[in-house]
């Protein structure tokens, strides 16, 4: 039996202990913990009144608006499992997700998908003063998150209330943020990083400001000034963008910013040093993690100044070990598969053989690397070919599948290449073999695949090829392409 409290229990506690403290700022809307809890109860009642019950799976458009939070936590209180999905996700992907989880409803989407459609606004008017509610059962599934698999099939990751409460505890323990903090969130909440930031803040009674994205630099810095922001989160691409658009302006906040959490993509040692120099008093905490195992390792740029090429050490309450392909633990400095153990780690995927996901109690990340004697973890590669476009993970197979559908295309292969603009880390590059008689152009291919792929998945670079290198078994050898 876990001693952890769910995030929902924590919000209830703060609604009693610090009812008037601001929990969420969203545009002009300031929501204190008491109102937040009351709105969550209304959403829960509204869903129950519509016939939803314990165990039902509900897809929610993960928008940065207060109503998303009410629906998300309200569904949890009603014992439902939520599936937060990017509101701009393609219709095909959404249909796949609905079928995979056997969703009973979608909240916040306009299109018809053959399941009940619920509008965020429908939660507003439900009276909840008489509401009796029980808190979530810790080992039941809170969320199902979808990740980019090595094939074009996204994997469904169930996370229990215990997983999520443990992750928030671990992250807060490393970052050392507290209830006085005011955090700005400009990352998407459809991914575990952004959504996790909300859970971290609300589980310690802090304030979180939800804002669109980093595009509007003036608005970001104005919010820093007006709200006295003490922390925020970044992916490397957002930092490069901030730097491109505002130079070293971030250093103006050297006394104000207590912490930054970074993650989701490779960040070079030189870039770490540069940011650390600009903010010498800020805890700049970079995680290594994945949806399945939240933030499994952490480093702080100042503390780890001699180990910046590592991804840090195992997060608090987390164990990391490196295994060979037979599941035997390896010694220091020996490269193998990085595996993680802790209360925050998923039990396995939905509709997937779990014997392939674990070595004993350790979850297999699919990443390659080694540990040093002081506990620092060094990544040396990935087992798969996932492309990381500014923190968004792209399966090459998904893009290739769409390109191969185009008339005149014989076959294709996609890889990640360094973004020539230096912003996104990687962009997608496509190698295309066309049929002999075809006069198809890259513009035509680009236009046609844009209907079925998110913008960041569309290749930025294109090259004609006479053939795609393959193994004897027909597997594409992407490492031979440049």
């Amino acid at each position, binding site marked *: 039996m876990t001693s952890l409290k769910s995030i929902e229990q924590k919000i209830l506690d703060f609604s009693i202990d610090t009812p008037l403290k601001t929990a969420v700022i969203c545009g002009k809307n300031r929501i204190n913990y008491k109102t937040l809890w009351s709105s969550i109860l209304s959403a829960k009642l509204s869903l129950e009144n519509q016939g939803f019950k314990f165990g039902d799976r509900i897809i929610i458009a993960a*928008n940065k608006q207060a109503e998303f939070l009410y629906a998300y936590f309200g569904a949890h209180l009603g014992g439902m499992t939520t599936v937060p999905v990017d*509101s*701009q996700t393609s219709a095909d992907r959404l249909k796949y997700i609905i079928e995979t989880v056997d969703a009973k409803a979608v909240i916040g989407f306009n299109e018809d998908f053959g399941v009940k459609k619920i509008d965020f606004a429908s939660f507003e008017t439900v009276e909840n003063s008489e509401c009796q509610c029980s808190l979530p059962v810790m080992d039941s599934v809170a969320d199902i998150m979808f990740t980019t698999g090595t094939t074009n099939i996204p994997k469904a990751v169930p996370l229990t209330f215990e997983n999520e409460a443990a992750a928030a505890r671990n992250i807060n323990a490393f970052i050392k943020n507290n209830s006085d903090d005011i955090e700005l969130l400009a990352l998407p909440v459809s991914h575990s990083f952004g959504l996790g930031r909300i859970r971290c803040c609300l589980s310690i009674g802090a304030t979180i400001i939800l804002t*669109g*994205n*980093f*595009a*509007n*630099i*003036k*608005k970001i*810095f104005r919010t820093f000034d007006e709200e006295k922001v003490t922390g925020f989160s970044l992916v490397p*691409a*957002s930092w490069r*963008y901030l730097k*491109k*658009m*505002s*130079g070293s*302006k971030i250093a103006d906040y050297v006394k104000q910013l207590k912490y930054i959490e970074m993650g989701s993509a490779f960040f070079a040692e030189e870039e770490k040093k540069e940011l650390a120099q600009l903010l010498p008093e800020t805890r700049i905490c970079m995680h290594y993690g994945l949806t399945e195992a939240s933030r499994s390792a952490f480093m702080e740029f100042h503390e780890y100044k001699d180990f910046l090429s590592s991804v840090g050490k195992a997060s608090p309450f987390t164990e990391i070990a490196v295994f060979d392909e037979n599941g035997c633990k390896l010694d220091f400095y020996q490269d193998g598969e990085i595996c993680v153990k802790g209360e925050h780690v998923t039990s396995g995927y939905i509709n997937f053989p779990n014997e392939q996901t674990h070595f004993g109690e350790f979850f297999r990340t699919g990443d390659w690397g080694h540990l040093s004697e002081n506990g620092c973890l060094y990544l040396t590669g990935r087992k798969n070919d996932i492309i990381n476009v*500014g923190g968004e993970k792209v399966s090459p197979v998904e893009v290739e599948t769409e390109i191969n559908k185009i008339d005149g295309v014989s076959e294709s292969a996609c890889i990640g290449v360094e973004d020539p*603009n230096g*912003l*996104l880390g990687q962009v997608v590059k496509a190698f295309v073999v066309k049929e002999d008689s075809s006069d198809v152009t890259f513009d035509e291919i680009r236009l046609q695949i*844009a209907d079925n792929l998110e*913008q*960041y998945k569309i290749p930025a670079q294109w090259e004609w090829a006479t053939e795609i290198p393959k193994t004897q078994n027909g597997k594409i050898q992407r490492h031979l392409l440049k």
Partner: protein
Amino acid sequence: MIDKIITIISKILNVPSADITPETEIGEPAEWDSMRNVMIFDEIEKQFSVKIDQSSLVDLETVQDIADLVNSLK
């Protein structure tokens, strides 16, 4: 001038030009993320043959602000 800027923005964001007005804030439509913001400024620099200084970018908030800046550089 502002019509041409709106056309560039709507094309890059892949939204109807009627959805973009002089008052539209940078980043306000969900499609207007930082990646596309860079593409928008690259295209504006190309089409208007201007060089936008980094120090000016941090003062821009709306489509009108972008038009005023480009105007001042012409």
